[in-house]
C-alpha cells in the first residue's frame, strides 16, 4: 500500500482489504493502510516518535549552493563575538568532566583570531610544520584496542587517584579532540570517539619533548589523534588514559563552533550534519536508532517468510499513488522517466508471479513542498501478503511497531512533544465514518446518494463550530466519500493522538483497495 496524502488515493485505502501495509520511516505524513494515526500535533511516523525527534532524515532537503557555504560561514563568524573559536569548552558543554576542577583558563590558548579564514591559514601552516618535522598530519591507520565506552565500562571500579599500569592496562585509543587545556608540564585533552568521551592525561615527563611540544603548539581542538598509554583515574575522579605516545591522525583546518546553536540554528544543523553530530552525540544516536528500527523491521519480516525485493525507481509512468512525480530523461533511450512515488504496483506484480510474501524498504520521491513533515525523498516500507486481508495487516502493523519500540526504547510508552503515547496493543480500530460521526454527530452514511444534503449538514456543523473552517473544499467535494474524507481531515485527524487504525475509507478515494466485503455482491 502506498502512502498518500490529502485527498488521495493511497491514503484513503478505504474499505480496504488489500493485504498490504506501508510505513514511512522518515518525514512522515500518514501511516497506512488502514491509516494509522499517532499524534495530532503533527502526524509523525513511528520512527520519528521512537527517536523522540522531529527530524529523522539524515540530510533533509537540499544543499543549495547559490551562496557559497564558505561565504555564509564567514558572515556568521563576523557577526558573532570575537574569540569564539577555540575556547576549550563552552557553557553548554554536555560534558562536565571536561573541566577538570574548574581550573580552566579562559581563552588562554585561543587561536586569538576571530576569522575562520585566519584560523585555516594558521592551521595549514601547522600542517607544513608537521611535515617539515617528518610527521604526516594525515595518518594512514591506527590500531585501537578500546573505544572510550569500553574503557569507561572496563575501569568503572578504578578508584580515584589510582593508576592501572599492568600489561593488560596498555591501551590504544583514537578520536577527535573536543577540549584541550594545557599547563606548563601537564595537558588534558578530551577525546571523543564513536562511543563516547575519554580524557587523555598528558604529562611532559611521560612523553618525548617533541611530542609534548607538538601537543602544545600544533594540536588543536577538532584534530583526530591516536594515543597509547595506561589507565589512571584522577583525583577529581576522571577516568583518563595516561598517555605515553601521541600522534596526530588528521589535522583539522576549520575550528569547531565553540557553541553550536543547536535547535536555534536548524538550517546549519541540517546543512552540515557532520558538525551537528560532532557537537551533539545525541544526534548520532537518532541515526543509530533509525538503523535499529529498519533492521528490526527486516528481521521481523524475514521471520515471517517475507522476501525483500527491489523494484525500479525510474519508471515509464509513476503509479501506485496520487502525487506529483519528479521527471527526468534517459539519454540513451531518448525517453522521459519518472521517479517512483510508490512501490505498490510493482510489488503486486511479484505476488502475481508467485512470491506470496514480498516487501520493499526503499526511497520514494514526491515533487512537493518541503515542510517539517515532508522531504522530497523519504523511505517507506510496503509489504504484500497473499491470502491475507486487512485484519491481518492491522495485526502485523501492531506487531512491527511494538517490536521496534521495544528494540529502541525498551518500552511501549513514550512521551512525544509532551504527550504520553501508549503503544500497548490492541490499538483502537474504527471506521472513518464512525470517527467522523463521533466528532460531528453526523452520520454521512445516512445520506445515501444525496450529496447536497450531506454538504448542507457538513456546512451547518462548521457554522455552529467555534473554530471557523474554510468550507470551500467541502462544497467542492465530488462525492460523499470525498466529503467524508475532507471532514475527517479537518476535524478528526487532530484528535487521533493514541495509535488508531482508521478503517473502511470511502471507495471513491481508494482506487486500489477492494470494496468492503459487506457491500460486495450481496
Amino acid at each position, binding site marked *: 500500500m502506498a502512502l498518500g496524502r490529502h485527498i488521495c488515493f493511497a491514503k484513503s485505502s478505504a474499505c480496504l482489504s488489500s493485504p498490504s501495509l506501508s510505513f514511512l520511516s522518515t518525514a512522515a505524513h500518514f501511516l497506512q493502510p488502514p491509516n494509522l494515526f499517532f499524534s495530532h500535533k503533527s502526524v509523525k511516523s513511528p520512527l520519528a516518535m521512537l527517536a523522540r525527534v522531529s527530524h529523522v532524515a539524515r540530510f533533509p532537503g537540499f544543499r543549495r549552493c547559490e551562496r557559497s557555504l564558505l561565504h555564509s560561514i564567514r558572515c556568521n563568524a563576523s557577526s558573532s563575538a570575537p574569540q569564539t573559536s577555540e575556547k576549550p569548552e563552552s557553557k553548554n558543554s554536555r560534558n562536565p568532566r571536561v573541566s577538570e576542577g574548574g581550573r580552566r583558563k579562559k581563552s588562554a590558548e585561543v587561536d586569538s583570531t576571530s576569522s575562520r579564514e585566519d584560523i585555516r591559514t594558521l592551521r595549514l601552516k601547522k600542517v607544513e610544520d608537521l611535515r617539515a618535522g617528518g610527521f604526516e598530519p594525515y595518518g594512514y591507520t591506527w590500531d585501537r584496542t578500546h573505544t572510550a565506552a569500553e574503557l569507561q565500562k572496563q575501569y568503572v571500579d578504578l578508584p580515584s587517584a589510582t593508576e592501572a599500569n599492568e600489561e593488560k592496562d596498555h591501551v590504544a585509543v583514537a578520536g577527535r579532540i573536543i577540549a584541550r587545556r594545557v599547563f606548563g608540564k601537564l595537558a588534558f585533552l578530551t577525546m571523543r570517539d564513536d562511543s563516547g568521551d575519554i580524557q587523555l592525561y598528558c604529562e611532559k615527563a611521560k612523553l618525548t619533548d617533541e611530542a609534548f611540544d607538538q601537543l602544545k603548539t600544533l594540536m588543536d581542538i577538532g584534530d583526530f589523534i591516536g594515543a597509547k598509554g595506561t589507565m589512571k583515574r584522577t583525583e577529581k575522579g576522571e577516568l583518563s588514559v595516561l598517555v605515553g605516545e601521541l600522534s596526530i591522525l588528521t589535522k583539522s583546518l576549520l575550528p569547531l563552533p565553540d557553541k553550536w546553536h543547536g535547535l536555534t540554528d536548524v538550517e546549519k544543523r541540517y546543512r552540515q550534519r557532520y558538525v551537528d553530530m560532532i557537537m551533539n552525540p545525541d544526534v548520532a544516536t537518532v541515526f543509530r536508532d533509525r538503523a535499529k528500527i529498519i533492521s528490526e523491521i527486516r528481521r521481523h519480516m524475514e521471520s515471517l517468510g517475507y522476501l525483500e525485493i527491489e523494484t525500479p525507481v525510474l519508471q515509464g509512468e509513476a503509479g501506485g499513488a496520487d502525487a506529483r512525480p519528479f521527471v527526468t530523461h534517459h539519454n540513451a533511450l531518448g525517453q522521459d522517466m519518472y521517479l517512483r512515488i510508490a512501490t505498490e504496483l510493482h510489488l503486486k506484480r*511479484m505476488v502475481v508471479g508467485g512470491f506470496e510474501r514480498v516487501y520493499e524498504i526503499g526511497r520514494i520521491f514526491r515533487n512537493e513542498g518541503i515542510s517539517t513533515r515532508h522531504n522530497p525523498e523519504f523511505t517507506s516500507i510496503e509489504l504484500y501478503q497473499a491470502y491475507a486481508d486487512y485484519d491481518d495487516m492491522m495485526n502485523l502493523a501492531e506487531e512491527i511497531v511494538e517490536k521496534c519500540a521495544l528494540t529502541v526504547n525498551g518500552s511501549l510508552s513514550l512521551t512525544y512533544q509532551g504527550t504520553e503515547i501508549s503503544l500497548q496493543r490492541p490499538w483502537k480500530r474504527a471506521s472513518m465514518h464512525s470517527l467522523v460521526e463521533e466528532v460531528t454527530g453526523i452520520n454521512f452514511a445516512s445520506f445515501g446518494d444525496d450529496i447536497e444534503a450531506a454538504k448542507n449538514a457538513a456546512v451547518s456543523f462548521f457554522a455552529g463550530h467555534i473554530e471557523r473552517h474554510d468550507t470551500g473544499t467541502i462544497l467542492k467535494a465530488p462525492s460523499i466519500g470525498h466529503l467524508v474524507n475532507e471532514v475527517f481531515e479537518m476535524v478528526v485527524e487532530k484528535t487521533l493522538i493514541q495509535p488508531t487504525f482508521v478503517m473502511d475509507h470511502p471507495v471513491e478515494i481508494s482506487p486500489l483497495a477492494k470494496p468492503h466485503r459487506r457491500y*460486495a455482491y450481496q
Partner: protein
Amino acid sequence: MGGATDDGASAVMEGGPEPMSKNALKKLEKAKKAAEEKRAKEEVKKAAAAAAPKKAVKAQQAEDDEDMDPTQYRNNRLRALGEQKEKMKNPYPHKFHTSISIPDYIKEFGSLADGDHLEDKAVSVAGRVMSKRASGGKLMFYDLHADGLKIQVIAQSNYASVSEEDFAKTHASVKRGDIVGINGFPGKSKKGELSIFVKSIELLSYCLHMLPKTYAKGGKDHAEKSLEKKLSEVAIDSEDNKVAEQWHPGASRNLDRYVLKDQETRYRQRYLDLMLNSDIRNVFKTRSQVIRYVRRFLDDRDFVEVETPMMNMIAGGAAAKPFKTHHNDLNMDLFMRIAPELYLKELIVGGLDRVYEIGKQFRNEGIDLTHNPEFTTCEFYWAYADYDDLMRVTEEMLSGMVKEITGGYKIQYHSNGLDQPAIEIDFTPPFRRIDMIKGLEEYSEGKIKLPESLELLESPEVNKYLIEACEKFDVKCPPPQTTTRLLDKLVGHFIEEQCVNPTFIMHHPQIMSPLAKWHRSIPGLTERFELFVNKHEVCNAYTELNDPVVQRERFADQVKDREKGDDEAMAIDENFCIALEYGLPPTAGWGMGIDRFTMMLTDSQNIKEVLLFPAMKPHEDVIEPPVRAADDVAS
C-alpha cells in the same frame, strides 16, 4: 567508493582455456538423456493413444481451451466473471484462510505411505493451478503451485460436499492459471504422489489469459507423465514435489530448458517468467541472500546502515553522467546520485566511525549486458582502517558469502556464452594480487614500460608514449585520450583479461583515483585496489584521501580532464571539501556492485537476469500474452 561498477563492460568475452571440462561432458550426457527421453515420450504417446482413445472426452474441453484464440479465451473468461457478478456472487473472495503452506504441507505429509489417506485431518491450502486433467466426469487432477513447490490435487465427486452436477460445473470453471483455495484432507495416491483430496474448492482469482504450457523435468508434460506412470508403474522419486529440476546458486543455468524463452516477455512481464520458469524464483532469492549476507556481515562488525540522499545539487563521488530532474517547489535542478561516497565520508567526519549504505545509484548511460540505468551498490567506510584491512575483509566477505550461498567456494559460470561450456570460478581465499603498473609491464611482456618515477605519469611524454602503445597493441581508446583513459584501456587489455578467479588489481596511479590517498611509500601511486572476477570489476576500494588541500588539487585536475572533453571526470564538490577541513580520520572505504556479483552466483550473462524490472526500451504495442511461447518445446 564510486565507480565500483563502471568499467569492465568492454571486457571481451573470449574463449577460456578449457577445452573439455566436466561441464561439457555433463552437457553431452544430458543431451543424450534428453534424446532418450524424447523417444520414450513418443512411445508413451503412441501407447496412450492406443490404450485410451476415448478417455479424454472430458479432457477434450481443456484441450479446446488451449487451442482457442487468446482474445476469445479472455472474452470467455470475462463473460464467466460477469455472470458471477450478475448472480451477485463475489468472483474475488476477500479472504481465504489457509491452514498450512505448501512447503509445510510437503514437510508434514510427505512421508505418508502410498495410498494412505488421512480423512479426518482437515487442511486448507491455496495456490495457482498450473495443470489440470480430467479422468472421466468424476475425477479431476490439478497441480497446485506455491512457494516454488507443488502438490497434486485430486478431486473425486464422492469426496466432494456438493452434488455431482455442481461438482462438474465447479471444476469446469477452474482453468489453468487460476488461483484457488482448497479445503480437503491429505493423502498419497496409489502411485505415491502427495496429494490433497478435495472437499471443496474455491476460485480465488481468475487468470484471464491463457498460460503457456508447463512441463516437468526434461520437458515432459504432466498429463503424459502420469500416463506414463500408469503404464509402467515407475517408482516415484522424492523429487516429485519440486516444480522442476531445481537450480542452485553457483550452478550453471540452462535457459534452453525454460518454458518461457522469449527474453522480451520474460523481462517485461517478469511475473510470467516467475510463474513458468522455475529457476527464476531462486535467482531472485539468491539476490536477496547476497544483500542479506553483506548486511549481516557488516552489522556483525558494528557498522551502522544509513541512508544518504539520492537527489543532489551535484552528482559527486564517481565519474559518470547523471540523471537530471527538477524540483518544482524549490524551482531547482537536481541530479540523481551516481555514488553515495561523499555523503558517507561526511558521516565519518561527523563521528559515525563505521557506516554503510546499500542502495540504488543512477547513471545516465547506455543499456547493455552489464549496465542498467539504476543499479544497487554497497559502500562502507571504516575509520582507522586502510586498504590492507579492506583486502582482508573483502576476501572474508566474498568467500564466506559464496560458501554460504552455494555450499562451496567454486561456482559454474558461462563466461563465454551459453553455447560454450561453463567455466569454474574459484573463490577460495586468499585472492591473487596484481600490482597495476608492474602488472602492465609483466603482462605486456615488457613491451610497456612506464617511467621509474611514477610522479611523471602526468607528463605529455608519457601521454604520447601511451597513445603509441595503444596503437601498437590495437587497444581502442576513443578520444579524449587522457593518460587516465589510456591507462585504463591498457589495463583492461593486458591485466583484466587475466582475472577470471577473484584478483585484486592494486596501486592505481594518482591520476586515475581522485578520491584515494597517495601511497605511503610509492610516490605517484595510491592505496587503492579493484577486485576483478571473471574479468569484470566487482569491488573498488581505497584508503581515503583525507588531506583537504590535496583533495582540492585532485578535483582541479579532474576539472582539467573535463575541459579536455572527458565528461566522465568528476565535478568538484565544495561542500565535501569543507567537510574534509573539519577533519576526516584515517579511513578506508569500499564499494561493490550487488547486481554484478549476483550475476556470477546465478550464472547470468545479462544484468537484466538479476533485475526484477530491468529498464527496457519504450514499448508501444499493447502487451500480448505470450500464449504460444512454448510451442517449440511442445512439438
